[in-house]
């Protein structure tokens, strides 16, 4: 028989501390869908997503009820679409539509994988594909896009970095009526992972199996509550407490992931041990850092607190799951975290501090609203900085910024729901134009030569 404290702890975690399975994401390979024409490929893509993901929402709802733990998002990730339409890149929008239609039919929240991997060079078909991203994101609802522009092994493709600054601006313009919302569905990566279940950056890597279930757990509120319970603890004890909490959260994720894979007739992929915040109070990574002893996230000590949190989450989580992957760490999206939003509103956190924080956590500059007149070169330079951190530190970094059309510092943008709201954050006004215009490749670091 179970003891009271264990059972009641689990129920408390769900009811009061926002414990949930953040996402069940089904990775689907589109490689077998490639046909001679774009039209027939699009049809096969639509059919495959509809048939493989047919029951994902039903199964997730069943599991949620049976185990008494909410499953917030049901998602699909697919093989990077630039590969699927390499023979007819000008017709990539057909695939965007087919995927978006399929996502709507099966009832999932998002579908990721309108993606290109150009970390070492940009083929013509990939460039054409990337050029289609702004319109694809403006004309679809569920589709998410990502582009990998660098890796520790290959260096940083600065031509692609330059292009993405422009693409982000175009995406903002194409969705100007929604405050540049399209940019919330577009991530630029360095060291992108092939089994990430989180959006907007999820895609299904070519090294993956045909149909795979990846699960992202969450639970910032549970960690915060655990820390609150030991207010006088030193950092060693705090780290232990975070590890134990992460273990419990991850075990729930592992159980759901295995069961979901069995019921959906798919391979169990990975559990992603991420602390993913939502705009709800008590579901915030920033508030964990503040609970550790900071007056506000963004002040001196923030990076150290975050480093410890991120590491402890991984240590606790790794033991709890047979297969760990994805991004696995603490997320610091500004608009999706009430503590971050409030710190940004008070001016306690800025882009530079956020950049430093991304060196010690997953993933990067995430959901940050920029002034609408931020130049493409400045956005590219932000991407380059972030990619450099990822490349040198052998970690995934990403940029998901929204240059909000017509808005400037001091104003706010509200995307609603899980995407939250964000005050527009200032960028440096000095130009990076010449650096970005140089193009070429930043070579891979010396420590990439491990063979």
């Amino acid at each position, binding site marked *: 028989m179970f003891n009271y404290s264990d059972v*009641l702890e689990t129920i408390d975690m769900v009811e009061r501390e926002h414990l949930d399975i953040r996402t069940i994401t089904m990775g689907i390979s589109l490689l077998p869908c490639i046909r001679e024409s774009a039209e027939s490929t699009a049809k096969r893509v639509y059919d495959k997503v509809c048939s493989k993901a047919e029951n994902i929402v039903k199964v997730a709802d069943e599991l949620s*009820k049976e185990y008494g733990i909410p499953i917030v998002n049901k998602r699909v990730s697919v093989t990077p679409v630039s590969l699927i339409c390499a023979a007819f890149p000008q017709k990539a929008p057909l695939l965007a539509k087919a995927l978006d239609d399929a996502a709507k039919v099966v009832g999932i929240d998002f579908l990721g994988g309108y993606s290109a991997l150009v970390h070492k060079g940009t083929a013509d078909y990939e460039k054409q594909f990337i050029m289609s991203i702004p319109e694809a994101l403006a004309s679809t609802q569920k589709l998410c896009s990502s582009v990998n522009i660098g890796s520790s092994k290959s260096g940083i493709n600065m031509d692609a970095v330059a292009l993405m600054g422009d693409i982000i601006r175009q995406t903002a313009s194409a969705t100007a009526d929604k405050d540049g919302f399209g940019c919330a569905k577009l991530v630029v990566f360095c060291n992108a992972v092939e089994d990430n279940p989180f959006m907007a950056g999820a895609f299904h890597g070519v090294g993956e199996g045909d149909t795979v279930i990846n699960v992202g757990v969450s639970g910032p509120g549970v960690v915060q509550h655990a820390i609150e319970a030991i207010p006088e603890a030193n950092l060693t004890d705090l780290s232990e407490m975070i590890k134990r909490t992460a273990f419990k959260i991850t075990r729930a994720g592992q159980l759901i992931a295995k069961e979901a894979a069995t019921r959906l007739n798919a391979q169990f992929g990975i559990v992603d041990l991420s602390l993913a915040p939502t705009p709800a109070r008590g579901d915030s990574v920033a508030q964990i850092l503040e609970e550790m002893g900071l007056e506000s996230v963004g002040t001196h000590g923030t990076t150290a607190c975050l480093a410890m949190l991120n590491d402890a989450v991984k240590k606790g989580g790794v033991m709890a799951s047979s297969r760990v992957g994805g991004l696995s760490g603490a997320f610091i999206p500004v608009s999706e975290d009430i503590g971050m939003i409030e710190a940004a509103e008070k001016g306690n956190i800025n882009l530079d501090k956020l950049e430093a924080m991304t060196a010690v956590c997953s993933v990067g500059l995430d959901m940050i609203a920029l002034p609408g007149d931020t130049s493409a070169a400045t956005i590219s330079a932000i991407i380059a900085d972030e990619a450099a951190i990822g490349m040198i530190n052998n970690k995934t970094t990403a940029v998901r910024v929204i240059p909000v059309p017509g808005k400037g510092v001091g104003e706010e943008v509200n995307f609603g729901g899980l995407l939250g709201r964000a005050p527009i954050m200032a960028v440096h006004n000095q130009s990076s134009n010449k650096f970005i215009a140089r193009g070429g490749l930043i070579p891979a670091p010396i420590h990439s030569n491990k063979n």
Partner: protein
Amino acid sequence: MRAVVTVIGKDKTGIIAKVSTFLSEKGVNILDISQTILQEYFAMIMLVDLSNSKEKLAALADECGVMGEKIGMSIHLQHEDIFNAMHSV
């Protein structure tokens, strides 16, 4: 298949009777019961067997929630594995 039923709320007369009658009507067999009063709050944990249950676990969990609302208690029915997973190595 086994599940854990938890009943939490302000103490009053007849809670165990109502919950166990409901479970028996559904063909759910009670294997173990543990009940206490924690700071004036009634807390009960039951381990139940669903082998002869007339309904699936998910539907039963929904109905437990509804019944809980009717009698002013918070009632959960969850697969036992969630507790095994989270609280044992």
